[in-house]
């Protein structure tokens, strides 16, 4: 395969009526009403949440009508999504073997969101999310090794075993947050710092459909708008907040409109290109000083809410299977690349093999690295402080805390 620039043009169509049908082979569709040759990035044929168009709220225009996917980008997105997928599946295995404990919220199915968002911003921008955070830890610069070792609670973990699944941090990535909704005002605070320091950076602040009803999010909408903070609110709508479907939790399920006075858009979160273009559009909006913008990504998680949830008491296996077969983000990208001769099957297989090896090596590390030393028990309470005594479980147990 020669490196080729391929125009994968697609329409984030506004106002065109589309026929919802599956488009994995070809990406060309004519739009009858406008008489334009337009391409639809994705369409899935199941009825649940087929987006018939990109929906806009208080926006005159949305993301551009065409996007360009280079071979290099395609391979990169493919590899990253596959890495997240296999990493999460390995975590599932390790959890069932009781090598990972406690909470473990897996991201498989939602890969296009993390990868697409990162494609629309840079590493000098900032990002914060909730507890379904392993994918973001990777896209924000973490390695599979240190993510897995954190899940298994070892000293080589990204938080040295002190944080666990929900508390992973990298540069300009503020976790991993366990309290539903709390990360959203935190993200606005990061955005405030960006504006204060005048560094042209922005903050992406993510939350789910379950968190979308949290009061503090509306408080944050208000202050972000008042002060024109450079923040992109992103609602990852995977249709279920734990076991509660969006219809049962939200009087309004149009999450992209819930910001009211904040302009919003809703895009297909299973399509990495849609996510990327929407993110770029949102980032431009922020960087031009217009203040916050809200994106809703329609996506799906294959696993239950966490490893303690089989995920089938509140939704059907058929539904999960349908999404897998018709809207899988990795399959969609793969098919698009293959059908446009951007990569060969062998090449992609090689990537799969390399990814599997990376995951195996990481899992090997994560299961053999020693646990943190007991000396670390009390450390990292305070930054830049003298060591001090910490009371242990009894008055005679005197432990030491170092910064």
């Amino acid at each position, binding site marked *: 395969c020669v490196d080729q620039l391929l125009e994968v043009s697609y329409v984030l169509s506004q106002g065109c009526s589309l026929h919802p049908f599956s488009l994995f082979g070809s990406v060309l569709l004519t739009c009858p009403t406008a008489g334009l040759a337009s391409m639809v990035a994705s369409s899935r044929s199941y009825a649940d949440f087929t987006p018939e168009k990109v929906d806009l709220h208080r926006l005159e225009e949305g993301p551009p009508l065409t996007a360009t996917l280079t071979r290099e980008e395609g391979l990169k997105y493919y590899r990253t999504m596959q890495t997240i997928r296999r990493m999460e599946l390995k975590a599932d295995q390790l959890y069932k073997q009781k090598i990972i404990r406690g909470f473990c919220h897996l991201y498989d199915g939602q890969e296009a969101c993390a990868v697409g968002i990162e494609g629309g911003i840079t590493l000098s921008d900032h990002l914060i999310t909730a507890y379904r955070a392993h994918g973001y830890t990777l896209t924000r610069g973490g390695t599979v090794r240190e993510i897995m070792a954190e899940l298994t609670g070892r000293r080589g973990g990204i938080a040295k075993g002190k944080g666990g699944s929900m508390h992973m941090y990298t540069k300009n990535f503020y976790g991993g947050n*366990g309290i539903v909704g709390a990360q959203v*005002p935190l993200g606005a605070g990061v955005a405030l710092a960006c504006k204060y320091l005048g560094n042209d950076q922005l903050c992406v602040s993510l939350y789910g459909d379950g968190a979308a009803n949290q009061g503090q999010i509306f408080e*944050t909408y208000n*202050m972000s708008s008042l002060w024109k903070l450079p923040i992109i609110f992103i609602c990852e709508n995977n249709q279920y907040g734990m076991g509660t479907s969006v219809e049962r939790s939200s009087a309004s399920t149009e999450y992209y409109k819930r910001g009211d006075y904040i302009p919003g858009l809703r895009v297909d979160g299973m399509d990495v290109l849609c996510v990327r273009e929407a993110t770029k559009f949102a980032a431009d909006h922020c960087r031009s000083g217009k203040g916050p913008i809200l994106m809703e990504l329609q996506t799906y998680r294959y696993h239950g809410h966490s490893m303690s949830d089989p995920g089938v008491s509140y939704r059907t296996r058929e539904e999960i299977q349908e999404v897998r077969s018709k809207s899988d983000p990795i399959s969609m990208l793969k098919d698009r690349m293959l059908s446009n001769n951007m990569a060969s099957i062998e090449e992609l297989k090689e990537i799969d093999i390399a990814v599997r090896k990376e995951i195996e090596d990481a899992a090997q590390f994560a299961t053999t690295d020693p646990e943190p030393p007991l000396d*670390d028990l009390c*450390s990292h309470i305070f930054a830049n402080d003298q060591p001090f005594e910490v009371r242990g479980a009894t008055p005679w147990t005197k432990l030491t805390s170092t910064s």
Partner: protein
Amino acid sequence: KVQVWILSECVSLFQVNVRDALNQAMDEELERDERVFLLGEEVAQYDGAYKVSRGLWKKYGDKRIIDTPITEMGFAGIAVGAAFAGLRPICEFMTWNFSMQAIDQVINSAAKTYYMSAGAQPVPIVFRGPNGSSAGVAAQHSQCFAAWYGHCPGLKVVSPWNSEDARGLLKAAIRDDNPVVFLENELMYGVPFDLSEDVLQKDFVVPIGKAKVERRGTHITLVSHSRCVGFCLDAASVLAKEGVECEVVNLRTIRPLDVDTIEASVMKTGHLVTVEGGWPQYGVGAEICARVMEGPAFNYLDAPAVRVTGVDIPMPYAKILEDHSVPQIKDIIFSVKKVLNM
């Protein structure tokens, strides 16, 4: 300004009330470090609900003195996020009662993050505001939060009494790279104290975690914080006339507790009474007594240690009831005499 001749040295003393001490401390720290900023309800154009931030908005403008809407959970979260990203916010709660709206951000987002991130993410933030009982503001506006916040690892909790405490501890808190809960007292804001030139130096700080012995004595130790320190000193004056010399320890910091100073005092006097405005159960005094029990000072006690506290009720409104809901000087004197078996 008063000039006092001590021995053959002239020491200038300046009368500064607690409000102005806090104001000057913030002003100097805002000037010293561009990353410091203040946010909260009415801190800017209103000059502060209790005028603690008077003049700061005029001097520093909208960027650094920010009026927030009445959304504590939201703006406390924003303040913590700003601290994550490298700024040094001072987040004011109009009173600490309102912090309950935002307590998750103080504890789960601020206090625990450095630990959870294994040192990757410090949180240099100060939360400040008036704490404890005021005058006639009734139950929802009168709670003392020293015990609640003092319970949590990852926080530093300070409770100044006088102007020197207020100035020095606020500077220390702002310069600290960790979350500090700064508990002021509304009734102390207008009280003047004499400050020496040394205290008024720009780099004067009172170290967090060190108590101060305000009055030396030999018969009994009184340990207190915030406004009650003044009551202890008043009680000590009265008791001195009867030949009882009280040692008064001003905690200054609730967490970390300066157990060494407390123990040294108790080992000297053999008697201990703690005095606080908050409720008795699971309170600051309870912690002090437990620590003394568990440490070397226990063997020096000639009588059980005892606590003087706020009455275990929601704060009533009527003046006569309110007066009887908080520790009074006579309660301290009574307790001292009981402990000394007088």
